[in-house]
């Protein structure tokens, strides 16, 4: 199964806004790739371009080498959840899935299979408009899974879900990736992606900021710090400063050293026979790393006066 999503110079201009700006990256199978960016960064537009709903101004988005519009019975290759409320409010959940299945010649029994899979069997006969947001989200996911596709796109799948729903979506995405599928999930919430994604594609103002693993992304942001505690704090500070490192006092009894590997500080202390009570890497939270990288490209920022 080689179901890579490839974006090459993908650009979409609305009037004077460059919603997606020369975006190039690839999304690989067998893992969950988080698609991160602040609100308005162009995540949804990118997904719509991949799905052939919008026409790109320039560049291409391909799945397995083909544009979405060239794929016959595309639901068997790509499943997508864009917006939870994307069904006719007066049509039952089962009938909604029935017509979708019919378009791509998906056997009708698959409808009940996916209803069962997402836990909507008890409300299958209810009109889509009467379902709660969480249930609508599940219906959208059921529609995405209908064709048993090797590629899945989810746009903000946990928006508005309760904790139980969030956990369910997270487990589902991990399972789908574990089956070897390509799973591309957008979110503006970093913390959520830290637990779910293997790789990250980060964008801001339509431009690519990073395409990397979660660990690398945190490291690259330069926010990695080391906390060190010692009864000989002043000596330690002097040694560190002589080694060209900047140390700040943290709550009186500890030092925080930025931009240095933990080994370097441990070795320095040993060579100078300084007793240490603590030596720990303070991994920057994903959130911090994200804020740092997207700070200059955030379109809408609250101005505090």
């Amino acid at each position: 199964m080689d179901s890579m999503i490839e974006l090459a110079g993908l650009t979409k201009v609305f009037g004077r806004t460059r919603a997606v700006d020369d975006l190039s990256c690839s999304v690989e199978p067998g893992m969950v790739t988080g698609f991160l960016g602040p609100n308005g960064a162009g995540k949804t537009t990118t997904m719509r371009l991949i799905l052939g709903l919008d026409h790109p101004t320039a560049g291409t988005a391909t799945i397995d080498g083909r544009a979405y519009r060239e794929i016959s019975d595309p639901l068997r290759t790509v499943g997508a959840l864009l917006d939870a409320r994307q069904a006719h409010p007066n049509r039952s959940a089962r009938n909604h899935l029935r017509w979708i299945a019919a378009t791509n010649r998906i056997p009708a029994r698959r409808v009940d299979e996916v209803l069962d899979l997402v836990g909507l069997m008890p409300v299958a006969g209810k009109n889509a408009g009467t379902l709660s947001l969480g249930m609508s989200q599940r219906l959208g996911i059921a529609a995405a899974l209908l064709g048993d596709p090797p590629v899945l796109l989810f746009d903000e799948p946990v928006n508005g879900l309760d904790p139980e729903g969030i956990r369910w979506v997270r487990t589902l995405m991990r399972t789908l990736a574990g089956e070897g599928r390509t799973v591309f999930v957008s979110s503006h919430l970093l913390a959520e992606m830290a637990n779910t994604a293997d790789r990250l594609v980060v964008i801001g103002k339509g431009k690519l900021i990073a395409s990397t693993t979660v660990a690398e992304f945190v490291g690259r942001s330069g926010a990695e710090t080391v906390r060190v505690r010692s009864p000989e704090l002043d000596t330690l500070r002097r040694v560190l400063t002589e080694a060209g490192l900047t140390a700040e006092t943290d709550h009186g009894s500890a030092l925080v050293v930025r931009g240095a590997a933990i080994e370097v500080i441990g070795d320095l202390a040993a060579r100078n026979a300084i007793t240490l009570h603590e030596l720990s890497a303070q991994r920057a939270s994903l959130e911090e790393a994200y804020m740092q990288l997207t700070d200059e490209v955030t379109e809408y920022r609250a101005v505090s006066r």
Partner: protein
Amino acid sequence: MSAVAVADAERIKLSTTRSVLWTAAAVAVLSIGLAALQGSTAYGAAPLPSEKAATGVAVFGVPVLMVLAAMTVTGEYRSSMIRTTFMATPDRTLVLVAKAVVAALFSAVYTAMMTIAAAVVGRLMAPPLVGANLSLIDPDTWRLIGAMTLYAALTAVLGVGVAALLRHSAGAVAVLLLWPLLVEPVLGNLPSIGSEVGPYLPFANVFRFIDVQWLYPAYAIPWGVVGSLLYFATVVAVVYAAAIVVVNRRDA
């Protein structure tokens, strides 16, 4: 064939919302009820022509079915379901063709049944002599049924086309109902230019073809009755083709 699959999906859509069934039922009751009224209130010795009994179907029934055809498109835009449709079938021309075919078939078959029912009910309600022409063995009645069927199919395609161009229910309904029921009668009855633009009004032409009297004056139309049908069909084709071009270019 994927075209068959897409048309089948459109059939499922049309048959799985209750509003369609309710609308269809209401249309039948009102259209045929009008025929019953016309039959029962007819008097004198002159027989009631079958096209009179079909006035309700032509003036009320078919326009509502045309709006229903439009709703199969605007309803999807309103609920964003159109994106699901285009994701399932990226060939948008195929989607619009499937919608037009299913709406036209539904309108045509339903209108044929309503027209037959109107003739039968009109005859039952009328005094014997008046109802003499409302007969299903009269070739004129069958000519009327055939003409009504064509009229219903074409207007359904027009409904899909206008709806795909405008996307909003309110706008599409306004255009589809105000045009034949208000704009054309007003234009046609304008003192100086009415007789000049009249022959080129699409609904005046199609009403001439089905031979049902409505608010349009009798224009001096330069072509024959079949020409009137072709003229209306051409207008429908132009609107529909424009819709296909626009929908393919537009971001969904």
